[in-house]
């Protein structure tokens, strides 16, 4: 069938969010030399406008669902959900970054441009309907993120983080690409739907084995991006080394997008060979939860602790994927939104607290925050309780839906072990609460300046989001459940 290379207007509408973000990013880069040094704060406002326009476009595009650009992209509820999610993460990142960059004397256009490109890449991932597009989206997003991780280029830890992330990331992407090559060689297609129908029709035991191997290779790539064990080694170093607002971004945005393609590829394309990939997703999920939670127990640096926590949470989402049913997909979607809220909130507090040169990033430094800045500490407590999974927070419902999906799929032991893991997790989150409320304030706390407007907005919005998802989960869950069929 000859492809139609003349895109229609609707095609452009469907990809409008990405277009808007790329244009804004390019514009900022071009404008920077023309604008005087003292006006550079305006970049964050321009970026915000770009993100908000993209957000509106993403929501509007949802009214025109369907395939575009010769079936390379798909706009459906699932794609819209993740586009809105990653653009939202972008907005919060901008809000939390302004003060940090000023403090480090590093406010410049490329930071915001890279952020826009990275989110645009994630949006491509969310809408991609075929493996090449997925790869392109992943690369756009990753390369921008590699640079962001090393953004403060005079800082040794930043350099280390960027280098590690880049080297290991490239290696993992190579595995992904190799997997794509295998699957193309086996099925003759890179389109997810066509791969699915090929595998549905059997194609002989040899082809199924080849497809299974391809799935394993692609799993390596995705597992790296979502920091699932045993490919999680990079995460603690990179999260710790990268600038705090970038860590905020990395732990929510790229991760959500990576999970989106993970689910689309494994549930849609590899749906017919579930029995081949379920065991290794299952064991990886368990390993990820255990490694994340137990390693976090020993951490003293709060960024590193949150990195391990982020690994553990990736494990919970993997449980939902291992369940490989529609409930599981909806649960994973809900969880990633709840996780984005609580994690952004937590990292916004860390960004606020760290001060110049990230001087105060140890758990002990937070001593007495509860009495010095009660509101900040109270909001932080909401995020931490949500990370623990205490009811009336989004984190609890997310976890509950995930383990419900797992029980639906008869993964009883995985559920029990996963939930017991979250009791272990309670310990290290509680330690932060203990320090904030039960220790006397020290120098780090007493010298704390008031919240910047951007971080204040982020904190309140994230707390509100966490609580709304915890008290009225139906608002989001219905949408997630309706778009979780993935058009199979």
């Amino acid at each position, binding site marked *: 069938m000859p492809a139609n290379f003349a895109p229609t207007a609707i095609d452009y509408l469907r990809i409008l969010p990405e277009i808007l973000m790329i244009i804004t990013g390019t514009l900022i880069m071009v404008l920077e030399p023309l604008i005087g040094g003292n006006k550079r704060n305006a970049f964050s406002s321009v970026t915000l406008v770009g993100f908000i326009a993209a957000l509106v476009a993403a929501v509007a595009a949802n009214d025109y669902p369907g395939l575009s650009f010769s079936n390379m992209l798909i706009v459906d509820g699932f794609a819209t959900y993740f586009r809105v999610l990653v653009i939202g993460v972008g907005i919060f990142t901008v809000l939390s970054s302004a003060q940090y960059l000023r403090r480090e004397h590093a406010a410049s256009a490329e930071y915001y441009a890279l952020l826009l490109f990275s989110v645009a890449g994630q949006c491509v991932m969310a809408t991609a309907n075929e493996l090449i597009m997925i790869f392109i989206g992943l690369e756009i997003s990753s390369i921008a993120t590699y640079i962001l991780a090393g953004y403060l280029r005079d800082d040794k830890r930043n350099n280390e983080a960027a280098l590690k992330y880049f080297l290991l990331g490239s290696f993992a992407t190579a595995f992904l690409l190799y997997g794509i090559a295998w699957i193309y060689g086996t099925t003759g297609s890179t389109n997810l739907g066509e791969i699915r129908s090929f595998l549905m029709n059997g194609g002989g035991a040899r082809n199924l084995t080849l497809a299974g191997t391809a799935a394993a290779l692609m799993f390596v790539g995705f597992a790296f991006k979502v920091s699932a064990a045993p490919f999680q080694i990079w995460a603690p170093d990179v999260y710790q080394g990268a600038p705090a607002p970038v860590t905020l971004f990395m732990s929510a945005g790229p991760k959500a997008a990576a999970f989106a393609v993970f689910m689309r590829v494994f549930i849609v394309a590899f749906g017919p060979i579930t029995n081949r990939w379920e065991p290794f997703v299952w064991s990886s999920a368990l390993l990820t939860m255990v490694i994340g939670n137990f390693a976090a127990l020993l951490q003293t640096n709060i960024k590193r602790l949150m990195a391990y926590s982020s690994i553990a949470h990736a494990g919970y989402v993997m449980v939902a994927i291992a369940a490989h049913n529609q409930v599981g997909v909806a649960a994973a979607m809900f969880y990633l939104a709840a996780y984005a809220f609580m994690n952004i909130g937590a990292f916004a507090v860390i960004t606020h607290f760290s001060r110049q040169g990230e001087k105060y990033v140890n758990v002990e430094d937070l001593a007495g925050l509860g009495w010095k800045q009660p509101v900040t500490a109270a909001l932080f407590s909401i995020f931490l309780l949500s990370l623990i999974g205490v*009811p009336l927070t989004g984190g*609890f419902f997310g976890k509950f839906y995930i*383990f419900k999906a797992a*029980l639906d799929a008869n993964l009883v032991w995985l559920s029990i072990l996963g*939930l017991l893991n979250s009791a272990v997790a309670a310990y290290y989150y*509680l330690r932060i609460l203990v320090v904030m*409320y*039960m220790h006397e304030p020290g120098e780090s706390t007493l010298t704390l300046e008031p919240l910047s407007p951007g971080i204040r907005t982020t904190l309140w919005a994230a707390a509100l989001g966490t609580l709304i998802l915890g008290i*009225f989960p139906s608002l989001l869950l*219905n949408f997630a459940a309706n778009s979780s069929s993935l058009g199979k």
Partner: protein
Amino acid sequence: MTLLDLVIFLPLAAFLLILFLPKEHVDGIRRFSLVASLAIFVASLGLIGPYWFGNPGKYVFETDLPWVNSPAIRYHVAIDGISLWLVLLTTLLTPLCVLVSWKSVQKRVKEFFAFLLLLEFGLIGVFCAFDLFLFFVFWEVSLVPMYFLIGVWGHERRIYAAVKFFVYTMAGSMLMLVGITYLYNQAGTFDYAKIMAGLQNGSIAPTYQEQLWLFLAFFIAFAIKVPLFPLHTWLPDAHVEAPTAGSVMLASVMLKMGTYGLLRFCVPMFPVAARNCSGWIVTLAIIGIIYGALVAMVQPNMKKLVAYSSVSHLGFVVLGIFSFTQQGFDGAVYQMLNHGVSTGALFIMVGFLYDRRHSLEIDAYGGVATPLPKLATVFMITMLASIGLPMLNNFVGEFLVLQGTALVNFWWASFAAIGVILSACYMLWLYQRVFFGKASAEVSLLKDLDLREYAISVPLIILMVWMGTFTQSFIPSISTSTAVILGPVDAKRDVHVHNALPASLHAQQSALAKEPVDAR
């Protein structure tokens, strides 16, 4: 909206209001908390109405609204004769705890009272929730304020105790969550009444293996909370380190969440598994009774002594529940209330001593009766109640439990009775060492109870006497509801029992017990 909804949500409203009060106005915050908690108590008194003056059905003050549509989680609350008294116990003790903390809490006053009211919200909710998921939500919600009460306002090792308390309970809760979710996947509902009906008419039919696992998932969560030997180790730490109000709420109300859960969910939902496990559970309960009492005897610290006595007393409650008799159930519920009143009072009075002398060590006292005759008197009554002196409350509960147990297995009752004797030993010895003898110089300077402290002690003393003498005020409503729970449990024993109606209750019981039930 019923009166019960009001009683559930008033504490939450009061909690939110306190957050907006300026933190400098500590007196205003104290007064507000007192007025709010008293108002909640008065409102909750209205819940007795149907039981004393009307003819209640199975559940009263029922509200059933959808909360989350998929999975179907409902805000389904109601009370029966068991919930009623536990709710009242909570609403009574909260204002008393506000008064207890009036002077002893001096730092971070606003947050303290805010958490106390949030705790009340969670606790009331636990006893009224008739949707398993809602129950779990309240169960966890009550955990957070207690964690802060212990961790911020406690004694030296408060942080260790608070974290241990939280993680222990959390581990149990997670197992319960698996159980609840598994049950939902079989039943398609979280609604307690529907699940009970489904289990009885066979539309929900887990295999025996599944029942056993589900029973254990719930049982471990509740056993940690009770706490049942050998899962009790968090309790002495939490009790000793908590501030007085925290110890009181913990001992009097929070421990009952565990026994309430056993009685409401564990036993009636999985009666066959419960019966098959009852042998070793009863054994653990009896070990707890004797072990708790023996360890209490050698404690040099007053709070620790009372804490271990709780392990012992709660063993009686578990014993009563797993005797599967009407008397055992009634006694267990009555004993939950008794323990709430008398152990709460003991913690309060130990708190009075601590406020004066700033020590919990028994050695620091001696001859307290000379300078503090009033405290010596109220302490004496409370102590006698705790021992189980006739005419005071604990006697009734312990007697009913022992009677119910003896009907099933006489040896169980005999071993458990050792606990009663031991309780007299450690309590009288404590009293002797603290109140009698020659008062040291420091002790003789201490002041006796003031008006505030009287206002706290007297209602509890009145209740001890009331509950020990006019049991008719309480037992009929309890029996009506425990009979409803016992019905399906007994049906599984191939003893034919009709779904109990209050009128036929006594006839049925005496048929069961083959002897007149004159204890009530």
